[in-house]
């Protein structure tokens, strides 16, 4: 990384540029074993308990969108980082940076959503902070959160994925790309035949459903910025196993596919806010799939692929017509096609 360069918008996209910034600036400077795993939550062992600790910031625009708002997103996003680590989410803190001029009614609506989402997820908001900045110094409202969860000792292997092995199956909990396209439609005032809603939702009921026998589960991650492709690439990068995925099993709504075709977006790279990827023991694939499908946020769950000894370090996709390609991480922002 060239230190004479400036931060670019692509550094926030969740792809390779983001990863480079994290590795070369943050991890390098903050260097410690708890951070270096770069999991969704860090696991801190005390004498009595194991704690998952995470942080996130929310800067989404528009702040109100079909299916939610920035506050709902902040709570469910934090809960999700904790629960896909195998922990039981408990406590959240919220810091608000508010632009002068934001209607108080907007703030109240956002905070009401946060309270409702926290109750739904069974977490308590126990600390907070508020700052107001002059007009133009932030975009309406930014929210930073931290979250704490407790991890039972038989779930410690989940966030690292260290027990993943060839033969394991890969599942997703539902349709991909809904959130990203809902935001795009809201930003661009697209009128669609079917309104696409963001899938913003807490996943802790879903994770508890599949963690009945934690040894069945090898790994979980919520599919956010950078999309499914980023997680698939990260999971097998520099490892002694590869991944095979079948495109025709990846669930995507037809309306999302259509918008993707129009804009030239690949749904594998789109952000979600209520979906997760799981890697499970081969023998448990069907029971876990059934457990997902009985939950509200898992009805569209499918098995999309498997871990393989072939092509170690690479995730390979079989396309809908049978061609093959290597799944790569996106470098920066995905930009719309020109023609």
């Amino acid at each position, binding site marked *: 990384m060239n230190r004479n360069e*400036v931060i670019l918008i692509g550094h926030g996209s969740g792809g390779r540029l983001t990863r480079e910034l994290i590795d070369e600036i943050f991890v390098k400077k903050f260097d410690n074993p708890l951070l270096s795993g770069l999991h969704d939550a860090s696991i801190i062992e005390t004498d009595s308990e194991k704690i998952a600790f995470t942080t996130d910031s929310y800067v989404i625009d528009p702040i109100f969108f079909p299916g939610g708002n920035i506050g709902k997103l902040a709570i469910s996003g934090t809960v999700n980082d904790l629960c896909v680590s195998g922990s039981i989410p408990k406590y959240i803190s919220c810091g608000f940076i508010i632009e002068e001029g934001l209607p108080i009614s907007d703030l109240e609506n956002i905070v009401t959503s946060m309270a409702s989402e926290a109750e739904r997820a069974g977490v308590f908001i126990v600390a907070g902070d508020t700052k107001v900045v002059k007009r133009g110094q932030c975009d309406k409202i930014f929210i930073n959160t931290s979250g704490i969860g407790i991890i039972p000792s038989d779930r410690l292997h989940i966030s690292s994925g260290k027990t993943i092995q060839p033969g394991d199956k890969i599942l997703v909990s539902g349709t991909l790309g809904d959130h990203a396209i809902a935001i795009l439609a809201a930003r661009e005032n697209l009128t669609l035949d079917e309104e696409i809603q963001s899938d913003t939702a807490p996943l802790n009921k879903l994770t508890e459903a599949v963690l009945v026998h934690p040894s069945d589960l090898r790994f979980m991650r919520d599919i956010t910025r950078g999309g499914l492709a980023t997680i698939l690439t990260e999971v097998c990068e520099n490892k002694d196993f590869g991944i095979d995925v079948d495109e025709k099993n990846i669930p995507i709504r037809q309306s999302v596919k259509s918008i993707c075709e129009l804009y030239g977006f690949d749904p594998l790279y789109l952000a979600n806010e209520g979906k997760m990827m799981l890697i499970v023991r081969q023998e448990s694939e069907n029971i876990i799939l059934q457990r997902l499908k009985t939950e509200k946020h898992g009805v569209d769950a499918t098995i999309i692929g498997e871990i393989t000894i072939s*092509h170690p370090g690479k995730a390979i996709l079989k396309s809908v017509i049978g061609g093959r*390609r290597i799944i790569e991480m996106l470098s920066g922002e995905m930009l719309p096609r020109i023609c």
Partner: protein
Amino acid sequence: MNFSVEFRNEKIAKALLTEIKSIIKSKIRIMEVCGGHTMAIRRYGIHTLLPNEIELLSGPGCPVCVTDQQFIDMSIAYARLPDCILLIYGDMLRIPGTASSLDREKASGCDIRIIYSTIQALEIVRKNPSKRIIFAAIGFETTVPGTAIALKQAKIEGLDNFFVLCAHKTMPMAMETLIEEGIPIDGYIGPGHVSAIAGSKIFDPLATKYNIPVVISGFEPVDLLQSVCLLVQMFQEGRSGVEIQYKRLVTHQGNVKAQHLIEEVFEPDTQYWRGIGAIPGSGLKIRKGYEKFDVQKQLPIQVERGPEPKGCLCGQILKGIKRPTDCKLFGKTCTPTHPIGACMVSSEGSCQSFYTYQSPEDLRESIV
């Protein structure tokens, strides 16, 4: 019929592949000249399914990739002017200029905005009467009507703060130039959306002059396989001419209304294509009646043509002479995260398509 379902049908795709394999008798080199086709072929792994006799070449079909470096440098120069807003289509943001790029300039404070359509451009023009709004207009025949209608509307409304930096290009002369340069091309997959606007008729002279088949294709995998199948048939039978596979959108005459609009605002001109050079009649310039919107006439800026990056093979890749994997920089110093050439930046560029959608079989030797 849902096109993105039917035209991705695996059974139909497999049947077409069987047909292609049964009729092919000799080597055939097929070039596509549309970034959308480049991407679709790689994304669906079509090149991994075709028989070895078929060599798929990627030509100068990525509108951003063929835009020369000097245009980026000029866009940067205009963006740096006081009280200017530069409007661009997305991919231009990261194309390296000689010393900087538009995303770096944006991060450093220049007002550079991505638009999806020229309707947005006019909204920005109306909302910012005290600023000069400059639209960097790139793209082939597909995007030209958008620019034309914006200029026509700006003239009607008397929007004096709207300007266009025009680098629009047109396909047929570039396709002829490649054949004239002796690049071995047995058939063209014709660009689908260009043809929707201009009509398949624009390729008739090329097909006749060079006795070559051209098949205008859609973008779904079955579209491309049907087009390849038809090209193989035509080639093997010694037939030339233009056929339309993309019948749901393309006609011989094209969109006549759009063509009249383009003629009202633009006239043919020489355009400079990265990797190929200046090609007469391969681009458009703003006509006399609309010259007050031509930023190069109203706010002329001198920008020297800078050297192309050392070792970058974009030029030869755009002509289909080399593959991205032939470039020493590919995947090492030139990646989508840190691109050196334009072909690695654009989502429709050969190099980015190769990188993002690599196939396990991507170990082929250089084709020259």
